[in-house]
């Protein structure tokens, strides 16, 4: 891995250069929160927020995606399907959000390949930004991750006192920077040390930790435990946790359009809604909030580890921060751990 430095005043030039050749997504501020949007000019970005409200999964797994177009009706036919091919860059993605893509890869490239996600994933360069100041519910370190981890990134930037330390992690990252080399110079030992200290300091400020030891076998014995009733009692079924979660990926498919032309679209759905599993016959395998809350926890902390060998949680804490009724996933898993079962 190559370590370079970029002086802070050169960042706009770097960004504008990237955006001239790629579709560039970066964090912007709107209405007192951060969201990833396409950036045409450096000034549109706002790097002062830690996390975007909606996770950047929305770039690779769009909330509304056209799967194909058709001519509707009984003499209808398929018109076209376009798999996105454009080259893009996500700038200032946080290490935990980058990790969510590594988790989602298994879903979208399982028995069948989802060409929409996979194509965008292949054509997207991830430029991360170290979290110098994690927030109060951050718990990425639970998953062997770190606020300064470059594991799931192509390039990682860390803000130093005067410069950005630029670590080129993958060939994809290297290629992106090829004609921007003039903006960068070799990092000094001191700068590499400074970056290390920043990461260590950031790790030391993370207060929260989830104890995952033995959780998978424990959950196997707890399917009918009253904990799920008790947890679901205060759940209002709002679905915010699923919409903001970087690893939630469930979707609905619908036909929309006019009488002349239409499209089959897919759109984010939420397992917290009763309609989600409701059969046309009226039968619902998950009729109560208890079933739905339990399924959400099991999906992330039991089914995912069993099927994909990874826990479907990054420690971003969006679900904790924005749950209106304080269902705190760390607290839930801690309770699972604390319950004694024969």
């Amino acid at each position: 891995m190559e370590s370079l430095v970029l002086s802070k005043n050169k960042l706009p030039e770097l960004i504008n250069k990237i955006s001239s050749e790629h579709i560039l997504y970066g964090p912007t501020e709107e209405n007192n929160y951060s969201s990833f949007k396409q950036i045409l000019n450096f000034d549109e970005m706002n790097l002062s927020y830690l996390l975007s409200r909606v996770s950047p999964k929305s770039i690779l797994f769009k909330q509304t995606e056209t799967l194909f177009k058709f001519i509707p009706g009984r003499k209808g036919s398929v018109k076209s399907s376009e798999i996105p091919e454009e080259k893009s860059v996500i700038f200032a993605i946080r290490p935990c959000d980058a990790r969510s893509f590594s988790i989602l890869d298994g879903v979208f490239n399982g028995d069948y390949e989802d060409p929409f996600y996979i194509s965008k994933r292949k054509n997207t360069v991830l430029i991360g930004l170290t979290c110098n100041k994690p927030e109060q519910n951050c718990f990425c370190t639970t998953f062997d991750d770190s606020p300064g981890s470059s594991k799931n990134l192509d390039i990682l930037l860390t803000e130093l006192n005067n410069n950005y330390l630029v670590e080129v992690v993958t060939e994809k990252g290297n290629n992106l920077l090829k004609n921007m080399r003039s903006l960068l110079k070799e990092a000094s030992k001191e700068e590499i040390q400074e970056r290390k200290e920043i990461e260590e300091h950031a790790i030391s400020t993370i207060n929260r930790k989830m104890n995952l030891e033995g959780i998978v076998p424990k959950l196997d014995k707890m399917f009918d435990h009253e904990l799920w009733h008790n947890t679901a009692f205060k759940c209002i079924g709002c679905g915010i946790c699923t919409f903001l979660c970087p690893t939630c990926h469930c979707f609905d498919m619908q036909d929309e359009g006019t009488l002349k032309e239409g499209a089959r679209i897919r759109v984010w759905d939420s397992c917290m809604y009763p309609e989600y599993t409701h059969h046309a016959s009226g039968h619902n395998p998950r009729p109560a909030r208890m079933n739905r809350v339990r399924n959400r926890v099991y999906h992330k902390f039991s089914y995912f580890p069993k099927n994909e060998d990874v826990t479907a949680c990054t420690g971003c804490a969006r679900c904790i921060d924005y749950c209106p009724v304080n269902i705190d996933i760390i607290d839930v898993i801690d309770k699972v751990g604390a319950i004694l079962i024969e």
Partner: protein
Amino acid sequence: MVDQKLLVEEVKKIVSQEDVKYVIGYKKGTYGFAISPAFAYSPEYVDKFIFNPLCKKNLAVYPILEEKLPLKKGEKADTRKIGVIVKGCDSRALNQIIQEKGQKRENLVIIGIPCTGVIDQKKIISKFPNVTDYTDIEEKNGNYKISINGEVHNIPKEELLADFCTSCVAPNPVIYDILIGDEVEPWEPQEHNNLKELNEKTIEEKWAYWEEHFQRCIRCYACREACPLCYCKECMADMLTPQWIRRSVNLSENTAWNIMRAYHLAGRCVGCGECESVCPVNIPLMELNKQIENDVKEMFNYTAGMDVDEKPLFGMFRPDDPEEFIL
């Protein structure tokens, strides 16, 4: 300020009643300034109950959320009452639900707490980011006195007060079985936020304003789920035949959803602000609700949820009802 001891004592008595299933109140959350709804089935649990200016959540949403799953053979329906702690606006929600026959008055034990306004979580978190715990929070002489790590901070009330509280017309519960503490002096309701300026804009400007907000909507429907008055068995947003709103998330469908939501609450919204507080993308939904509330007041001289014996606005007809808005 509510006497914590008195609250716990009174709620314990209610939970102990044989005809009460549980009481819904507030307890401290798992981190920072978080508050969690709490469900007490036994008097011991009530020791966790608190009430402070952070207790914003409208608990009136819960009795209606109670799931009545099919009974097993020989099982009898549990008809015991549910106790619920309510502030002024929350009590209006219960009134409204009872008027609409969504709940039966006799199935509820209503524990009223007079309220002088609640703190907006978003505001306090931006003032004190990364605070892992607080020891005490109370309102005193126009300030919030907040003790964090042994340090006391006095923050002017208006800096943290939830916006919708300034336009509150019922700080004291309007329906209750027991009132904890003394009634508070109501204040002169103010026009909500920038509603006045918004109203001075042209139609085009207003449209642009709302377009900018609605385009951000992620259609999670948290506004609906958090609202104590959004309790239709099947929401029009979920219907497939006919499909009133398409699932695509775009300006057109988002606008349809947000406007339909607001209109379905015309004459029903009690101004508790839950929808706006939970909105993950900060859409100022209360500006819509408050405008409709103002219109309803002006046209029908009606305020939702004030009197349990009144009929719902759209459940009654007066020969002199205005009709100029009917095209």
